[in-house]
């Protein structure tokens, strides 16, 4: 949110907002001044009040003045814009690294200890460096409250950094158009005190798929699907999205295209596994190749078993 709150949400807010003030200030001044002058002229020199125009072809002195003044003003604007931006390019040497991974259409964040989440958790008042990774197409990571944004380009290593300054939850959007569910590619940043963060990051129970007996296997399978963002492309209710729906798939026959060949396969454990690890090997007829990436690093064999349980449960 846009506020003049002295408790800045990140270390960049002050610089960026100063640039805003300066540029918007000058702009609004010119807008109002020029509009008023124009309206006054239109009123004062209306034809019925001023029937004879007084000819005047120009004035070189004036031309110079109104070239020079804006020139100085834009240089001032440039300067403030530059100063607000410069610190963004200089990440500190010592900082916590988080790998931010974007794919169609979700973010995931991987911490130094291997923990993966779909929301970004960071400790307050400490520099954080995000290593930006895009797996398929361009995405862009934008945290309005922090005034930071950087595109994520597949095949390029880029970083962004900030020091969060206010506790709380903030929005995090994808701002580079990336296809169907671009507008649903958002999540949050949670800024918390150091001790809370330490407790959270060492608590690995939430991340590993421990087979607990409390929740059913199928529910845990759903949890896996949700965490990996599969639902962006696969529906539960049979609607055709980017990929085939989960509903009514298990155990049936499917026509798939393997390479150039068409063939019929049964949806069994092997098929599901292959669809997750080598999604482009067999492409179900009517869907496009190349849209899904392998989830080999993100989804373990045990998790696939849970997913299969979920698919089976859907058939009931």
């Amino acid at each position, binding site marked *: 949110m846009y506020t003049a709150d002295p408790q800045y949400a990140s270390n960049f807010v002050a610089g960026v907002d100063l640039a805003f003030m300066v540029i918007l200030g000058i702009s609004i001044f010119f807008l109002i001044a020029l509009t008023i002058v124009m309206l006054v002229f239109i009123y004062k020199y209306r034809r019925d009040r001023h029937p004879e125009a*007084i000819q*005047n072809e*120009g004035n070189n002195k*004036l031309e110079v003045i109104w070239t020079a003044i804006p020139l100085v003003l834009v240089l001032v604007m440039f300067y*403030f814009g530059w*100063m607000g931006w410069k610190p963004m390019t200089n990440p500190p040497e010592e900082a916590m690294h988080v790998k931010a991974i974007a794919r169609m259409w979700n973010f995931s964040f991987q911490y130094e200890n291997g923990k993966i989440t779909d929301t970004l958790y960071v400790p307050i008042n400490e520099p954080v460096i995000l290593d930006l990774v895009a797996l398929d197409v361009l995405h862009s990571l934008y945290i309005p409250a922090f005034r930071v944004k950087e595109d994520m380009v597949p095949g390029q290593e880029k970083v962004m950094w900030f020091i969060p300054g206010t506790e709380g939850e903030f*929005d995090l959007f994808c701002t580079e158009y990336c296809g169907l569910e671009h*507008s649903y590619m958002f999540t949050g940043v949670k800024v918390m005190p150091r001790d809370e963060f330490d407790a959270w990051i060492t608590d690995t129970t939430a991340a590993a798929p421990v087979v607990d007996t409390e929740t059913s296997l199928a529910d845990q399978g759903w949890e896996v699907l949700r965490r990996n963002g599969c639902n962006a492309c696969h529906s539960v209710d049979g609607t055709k999205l980017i990929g085939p729906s989960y509903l009514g798939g298990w155990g049936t026959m499917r026509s798939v295209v393997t390479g150039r060949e068409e063939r019929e396969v049964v949806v069994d454990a092997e098929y599901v596994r292959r669809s997750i690890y080598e999604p482009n090997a067999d492409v179900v007829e009517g869907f496009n190749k190349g849209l899904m990436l392998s989830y080999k690093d993100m989804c373990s064999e045990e998790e696939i078993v849970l997913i299969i349980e979920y698919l089976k449960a859907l058939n009931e």
Partner: protein
Amino acid sequence: MTSNDSENKGYKSYLEEDGGRKGIFKWILSTDHKRIALLYLYSMMVWFTVGVVLGLLMKLELIAPGQTIMGPQSYNATFTVHGVIMIFLIVIPGLPAVFGNFMLPIQIGAKDVAFPRLNLLSWYIYVLGSILVILSLFGNGPPDTGWTFYAPYSFKTGTNMLPAALGAFVLGFSSILTGLNFIVTIHRMRAPGMTWFKMPLFTWTLYGTGWIQLLATPIIGITLLMVAGDRILGIGFFDPAKGGDPLLYQHLFWIYSHPAVYIMILPAMGVISEIIPTFSKKTIFGYKAIVLSTLAIAFVGYFVWGHHMFTSGMSGTALYTFSILTFLVAIPSAIKVFNWISTMHQGSISTDIPFLWAASFIFVFLIGGLTGLVVGALATDVHLHDTAFVVAHFHFIVFGGVGFAFFGAIHYWFPKIFGRMYDKSWAKTGWIIFFVGFVTLYGPMFYLGMIGMPRRYFDYLDEFHGPNIVSTLGALVMIAGLLIILTNLIKAARHGEKTTEMNPWGGTNLEWQIPTPPPLENFDEIPVIEKATYKYD
């Protein structure tokens, strides 16, 4: 258009002189620059209607969070086709092809453009390109890449991106040929005495525009061909998996598309520079400064493309160079604004409808231009890039600028073109409704962008709801205004009161010194120009 009109007037106007052809061939085979101008006008009206409806659909979708009238795929296709139509089919060719074609030869005292048949061919190419764009709607579904066709998404999507890109490629040809034609016409066909610094300012802006069309358009042509190569042959120019660099695509795209925004705005500025002196009954203030600023915009405009890529990961050096160049290109625009307002000073101003459009142009252009400065600075653009703020900036300047100038132009030259007059009070009613709707529609988007709503979002969080409602209401108001304006004009073109008055507004350029509507070859005898333009004495 009855033929015995000519007997009363003693000459045959271009509307009656049909070259002995029949039916529609009277138009589509004519090489008369004035008829070709009208061909462009009519075909653009069709696309324009489509574009406006698509814009309205988007606003309706955005009236509330969640899905309201269409799904995400349709929304993505809608803004893509809306952008492609508006940019490539309406505002880039718009003013040059319609009013440039009609007025340029007349304003410099020529009988036609240098290559009349090439001129007609350009129109056919335009139609071909627009058909390709429309074809992209069928088959695998309309393209969903945004008008920017950013790689690598543009060759990953399964939709019909290729026909749309090819359409843009073909339209580029039309644009190049028009520019070429105008430049040669201006160099070779000025009437005796029509020296460079006696040329009307509209002609000057067409000259600047012509050069941009000629020298920038091929870049997008080749870029789209490369994308086609990536899609069809799998070459991998822009495919990161094959070593290509998606950022290079952005460079190439904007090397064209930034200068393209000046293709749009320069003729618009030209129109304003015509209207203001006429209705102030006063010589334009600082003629030479305006000419020089036109050339400066055309030239410096080539070197600022990187301001669309501030967050893409360019080198720091490139970032601040582009930022500073962006600020420099704003100066010549400022010079123009100051000169326009000074022209009004001590004038004798008639607030007829063309003048109202021109004055409101200055206001919305100021907003659009000044917010361009906000996104031109590095720190602020990092926050605002790809948010609703940018959408507001370019609607204010593209359609506030070019659209307002277009309406100004059509109201200004209407009697000359059609030999008929529209209803002035309806025109004013339409204008005020349109203006109010316009500001209500796009104003809230600045705020939305500042609080962080990304663009190309089919759905949004609840916190963005309020301003979006206002904006949609504004759209409805504006469309009402638009309907009034268009109905008034269409009605007038068909049944409006006939006029043969040569100079209804008291203008000084050559177009006001020939009969209304103009005869086939504009001038019986090529005029000899002695006076400077915009001279009132």
